[in-house]
């Protein structure tokens, strides 16, 4: 059972509803410690002045906002303090919009809401949202930050997805719909046939993060003390040039001959 990460109350019109907030995503990133190769002792991070190498204590660190290549403004701690929004447990639902109005590019991070006490109101709200096919636009302050979110119902439960701000979501105007290449009806038909030939239902279980799986296996094998066969390191992530591809092809042929 997952622990709630935050508690608050939804304010919808004159109604109030206590909720608990749970992350809807599980972080599966495999995390590593940075160690000193010689003695495998963990490393410590020291913050230093780049020009003198002198160590700087946490109290003396500031953040600076670059205005141009030459000038920057140092943000003082009390400036930042003033920007912190007042603490509150209220999640204001300011309005409801049709569920279809928000494209997925607005979605940032999803959470599940669980009831905190009043179960029947919780499930009533979820049902009302599903029946009306709407989402609520929510504003709240959590851990010193302001959030805008979309309140919706999924399979009878409430979810809250934080939304990106209007200035974060970019539009794209770089594509000129060139008239001369307007697809012909016959081409459209062929393309449709091709698309429908591989039509399917969305099944996320078909896809696995294979890199993470391979890394897990590698760690397990090493933990058991198995010898790991060193594999020729792959070329770095630079885009493959013709020369690189040629060399790689030649190397591949050679490898076969040796084996």
């Amino acid at each position, binding site marked *: 059972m997952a622990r709630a990460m935050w508690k608050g109350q939804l304010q919808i019109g004159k109604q109030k509803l206590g909720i608990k907030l749970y992350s809807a995503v599980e972080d599966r990133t495999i995390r590593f410690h940075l160690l000193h190769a010689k003695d495998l002792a963990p490393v410590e991070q020291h913050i230093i002045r780049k020009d003198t190498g002198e160590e700087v204590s946490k109290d003396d660190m500031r953040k600076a906002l670059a205005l141009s290549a030459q000038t920057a403004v140092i943000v003082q701690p009390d400036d930042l303090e003033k920007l912190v929004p007042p603490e509150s447990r209220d999640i204001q639902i300011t309005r409801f919009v049709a569920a279809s109005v928000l494209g997925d590019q607005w979605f940032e991070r999803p959470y599940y809401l669980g009831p905190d006490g009043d179960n029947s109101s919780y499930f009533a709200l979820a049902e009302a949202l599903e029946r009306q096919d709407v989402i609520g636009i929510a504003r709240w302050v959590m851990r010193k930050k302001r959030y805008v979110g979309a309140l919706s119902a999924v399979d009878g*439960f409430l979810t809250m997805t934080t939304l990106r701000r209007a200035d974060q979501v970019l539009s794209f105007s770089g594509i000129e719909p060139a008239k001369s290449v307007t697809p012909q009806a016959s081409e*459209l038909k062929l393309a449709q046939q091709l698309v429908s030939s591989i039509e399917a239902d969305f099944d996320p279980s078909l896809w696995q993060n294979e890199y993470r799986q391979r890394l897990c296996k590698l760690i397990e094998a090493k933990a058991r003390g198995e010898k790991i066969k060193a594999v020729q390191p792959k070329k770095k992530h630079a885009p493959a040039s013709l020369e690189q591809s040629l060399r790689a092809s030649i190397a591949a042929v050679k490898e076969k001959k040796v084996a």
Partner: protein
Amino acid sequence: MRPLWSGTITFGLVSIPVELVTAVRPRQTAMKLVDKAGHALGREYHCSKEDKKLSQDELVRGYETDSGKMVVITDEEFESVAPEMSGDIELRNFVPLEQIPPIYFNRPYFLAPSGKSTKAYHLLTATMEKAGRVGIGSFVMRGHEYLVAIIADNGVLRADTLRYADEIRTPETIGLSKRGKATASKVTQFVKIIEDLATELAEDGNPWRLRMVGALDVLPAPTAEILKAAQEKTATRTEGVEVNLAVGYGGRREITDAVRSLLYEQSAAGRTLEELAEILDVEHIAEHLYTRGQPDPDLVIRTSGEQRLSGFLLWQSAHSEFYFHDANWPDFRRTDFLRALRSYAGRQRRYGA
């Protein structure tokens, strides 16, 4: 914008060269770490045992197992499991967009056509938009393998990275109580609140009614929704004038929409095309324009020094008087308006006679 990745979308034997650029900006502007006097700061790693500065090649990465054992993974070993470099986004299948739960969406990117011919790009975009389907596939960028949905949106392709299924929690795994029964009266109560809040978009206290003249479906959905709601909200106002908001407007499109609406109406009434052709007159079209019910404009003021209408009120302006003005619309002053009225007052209207 510089592309973050370039390669090809492939499905079947089709391959479409594309460049990937970001579709979202970070929330906060990046700030630099400095000391009190503004000197730039950096970081160093020190060994916790020997207290000496370590260089990059003295560092290794270790994984701590549940039993507390530290497993060191070398750079070569990391390389050996890294995903194979590939320049392809291979679409495995096409699924209905509405089947992907919002929880899955992680980060959006735009895909721009690259290379000489953009024909295949436009073909795929048009096909996917028409079918309401999105392509699902995976690709490798900067050493990471991503699951993506390729979405056609207003003539542009987007690659939205998706979370993997094992990264998604469910109400059961979180441990939320079983879906409970809600009493009908409580549900109705919330439905009522939703309806009240839904129409609170147009500013209160204004006397005018808003009317959208334009094709709302060519606008981004949130914009269209807000405009539509504003129109609904002000529909019952009586004291002020009616303001037409021409957003996403084109005169030819308006006439086409009017004819289409007329055809639908007549066919719903059981009329054949021949019958309609016999009775069709000007008023039939006018009744289906965005401005239906409003008189035609007496005076059209064209600002910004252009000597053309660009299709504005193409049908309605048949007998209108025109007034051209050099200033751009934001600079158009009250005195300019009065001047236009004076010019209009001095003219003799002929109404096409």
